[in-house]
């Protein structure tokens, strides 16, 4: 049955941290439906068991409508967060659900001491690119034929402010 989703109020969406094996099929179904890359169950478990605090699900009336899956760790001498998958089902897009999901993950990463956050997005995925741009991500690289479907990717990067840099340079220009 098609539900009209136009009237959905942001307050009706409930966000929860990954809470265990019962959430796994929900995440897997969403990602399998909406993203082009296939992942094995090992990949999902790798993320959600090691960093359950970085994965979130969005529910509307008990139905899972969006999810974000992440990791963090040392990468070439920087402590870096990585957003592996972000999905909101089509009819629920444009309501800020993805932004809310990913913002929660990024906040956790920031609090856990990450210096930066990275991810890849298809160059054709205008929605995702706009979303991440609003959050302060830059397009650091283009990765030629990155995805199995042959599409290029952008490597997106968000650098968290380092306090010592800021009081040196930003202060005189604060508006």
């Amino acid at each position, binding site marked *: 049955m098609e539900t009209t989703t136009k009237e959905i109020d942001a307050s009706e969406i409930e966000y929860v941290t990954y809470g265990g094996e019962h959430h796994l099929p929900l995440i897997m179904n969403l990602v399998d439906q909406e993203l082009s890359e296939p992942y094995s169950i090992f990949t999902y478990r790798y993320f959600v068991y090691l960093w359950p605090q970085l994965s979130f699900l969005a529910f509307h009336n008990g139905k899972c409508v969006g999810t974000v899956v992440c990791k963090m760790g040392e990468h070439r001498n920087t402590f870096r967060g990585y957003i592996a998958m972000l999905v909101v089902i089509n009819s629920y897009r444009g309501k800020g659900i993805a932004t809310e999901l990913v913002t929660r993950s990024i906040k956790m990463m920031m609090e856990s001491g990450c210096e930066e956050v990275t991810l890849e997005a298809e160059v054709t995925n205008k929605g995702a690119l706009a979303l991440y741009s609003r959050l302060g991500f830059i397009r650091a690289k283009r990765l030629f034929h990155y995805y199995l479907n042959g599409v290029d990717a952008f490597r997106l990067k*968000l650098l968290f402010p380092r306090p010592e840099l800021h009081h040196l340079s930003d202060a005189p220009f604060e508006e």
Partner: protein
Amino acid sequence: MTRLDRVEEGLAEARASIREAIRSMNYTSEKPEYFIPKGSIYRNPHAFHQSHIEMVKRFKVWVYEEGEKPIVHDGPLNNIYAIEGQFIDEMENSIGNNPFKARHPNEAHVFYLPISVANVVRYVYEPIMSKKDYYRDRLQCLVEDYVGVIAHKYPYWNKTNDLQEGELIHGDNFNLFAAMSAVEIMDPKMDSGIVSTYYSLDEAIENGAAPVPISADKTTDVLCTIDIMDHLLACEATWHTGHSLAQTVYSCLYLLQPERTSSHALLHSYCKVTRATCNAVLSVVSDTRTHEEEDLFTMTYDLPLSEDRDERCLSMLNAVEETISRQLRACKVSSSKRRVSEDIETLQSNPDLEEGYCKALLCRLRFRKHFYHLLMSMKRPQGRGLELARKHVASCIVEIDHIRKSSEFLRASAQEMSKQNIDNTTASGCQPIGFDASLNSRLSAPTPPRAIKILCWEKALDYYMKLLQDLDIICSYSLDPSLEAAFLFVVKFQKSQPDLVSRAHLQLLLVQDGKLYGRDPIFSVITKAAGLPEGTKNHDIQKNQFMVQLGQLVINLLKILCTNAAWQRRKLGKMLQDWRVTSVQLELAFKEFIEASNSPGTENVCFKIFQHTLAWVEEQTYWIASRFLILGFELELYTAHDYCMVYWYIYVVLIKLCEKKNLRMAMSIGAAKKKAKKKKDSSKDAGMDYQIPAAVLFLQSQMYLAEGLSMMFAALRNEHKVVPPQSPFSTEHEIFIQQFELLQKACLPDRVSYMSFKESTVHANFSTLAMCDYFKEAQRIAKEVKSSFANDPDKMAELRRIEQVAEHNSIALNVICRVGALDPSLNISFTFCHHPFFATAIVKRS
């Protein structure tokens, strides 16, 4: 003692001897040890060695005996699922004693369920007809049944009860790569081997998938041969655009068993030349390593590629061409004189179609011949074959035209027998016989399948036309001994976005044996570029380690410029640091030299070489920096909110580039004493005896344009027309750091920072902008300098574009000022329609 106690005791002994090995730094073994591991690759080589000894001595696997072949106790022994079958085979069928096989379950450390998932798929699931056939229910039932039997019959099942769900991933060596390397069999998105019609080439051939001859009816046989040729061509073009050889060209079953076609001269010769051509292309691409991220291209999985001797493939092709030419002549004679010539056997049985078929075949064969010759000529050292290559390019283009025109005839004659081919990879529109892309998917690595869409016939021909044109551009290059000319040639060549194959050939031409064009030693090329006299090119200073290093950098730069834009930008960014370091090292060596030789006169040769080379290196470094920044536009790495800082950075890099170029040029025309002013307005006070070279003025026009755009974007933001979104996580400062990280690391330019960017843009506003109009300045210089480039169409075109952008932006600026930036009816947008990286403002009033 229970079974478990005995097993545990053995393991305890093993642990003790490993500990002892660590302590004594020696091993104990009952057998002579031939391989003693050592080196830093092991965390502890002694522990590793002893642990291996203990494993070989003690480790036992019990293989459950229940169940019947082929689903249990058997599995595939080849291709991507072989690991399953190999293991079962080792455990069950190894002749003599497998030391790891437990004779009794009581001595086992692990228990093995010898089920083959690959065989379940093969015997239970296939043929897969619908989506439902992918459901894993049947597989799950089989395994559950088997586990049920075992758990009921033996006491061992799940005795340790140790591993919880999800626990596997907590292992030390279980990283993301390991997780992603696991492929779920039966999942069509992940398992590349699952969707296949045949298990092996032999099975496909037995089933008549690739008959020889293709048809007993000669007319049909010819038409089908043409379809195979066309589809092969489409496959080859698809391969060139970045797909695997196994899934494209080698989806042709006829190619896979070379000797099978030998009775069919036409097909045989075409297959032979196709294999030889692929081999030639492959060797150029792998030698030049331009493919970097396109590594799919060069994987060959033991496909039959190079069994053909090159000369033989051509002689065979020539013989077939000769025969068909005769048949064509014969049918023309016989149709005009209405007399059947008895001495020549016709190509096929229908006299009305004889001419059309002969012609359709001839152009296809000739295309292959010339294309092969073209590749061979381009491979000749020092560009010696380029002139000949151009002739073959011209011939190829003629034949492609004939191939295109043959479509009408082939469509008409195929009409009644054709099964419509939706993808139209053939001129006739028929589905080709003898292709199966799924057969090789079991050869490729166990990675998820990549989506492959074979180019349609028209697109494939278009691809070849573009490839031929690109190769023609390369072949007509004059092999200009000037390095700058070579750089500019590559940059211009890249503008048309040439594909991998032509880029690889360009690189092959540019760098051979560590020399430019395989002809000019790099040091001599550098001295020439640095404006040094001819006599310096063999100077001993070339043995100086930093000069050697510089030579390597130049070669690398040439190669990198030939790669695809995405890869190129990343490599250039990383390379900036190397150029900077080399330039600092050269500077130090220069100083040391001056001290050691007690201030040699400026006429000293070494002094001159150092001085000129250093200036040239600095200029090159800024040139690379500007190219790095500009490529960001082509790759769409910048969003509108980044433009202000990106143009500002381009502007500061161009200032330095102008300055360095001016300095270097001044040196080489002997005006070195008058050190060029560092200010960009040096044109005004340089005096009468020194004129700024046109090449510098050219850059200045770009520089003013960049400055103007940067200020315009700054003014737009300052006067609140355009405000970038405020990120909750970072500020403009972080964006600046990230965008220019590599340039900043290499201090390009020195003392440039976010601070300086802010200082120069924070007060930008339209009223002051209109007063000192950078766009007008850019336009003026571009106009002035045009006369110096009358013979350089590329520079002329660029100057015209600069003028256009500058003029439009200057007008836009005036309109905004007149109306007032805050006027709500003002609508300002930007476009790249006049220039690939300098934006043009469009001002509208609603």
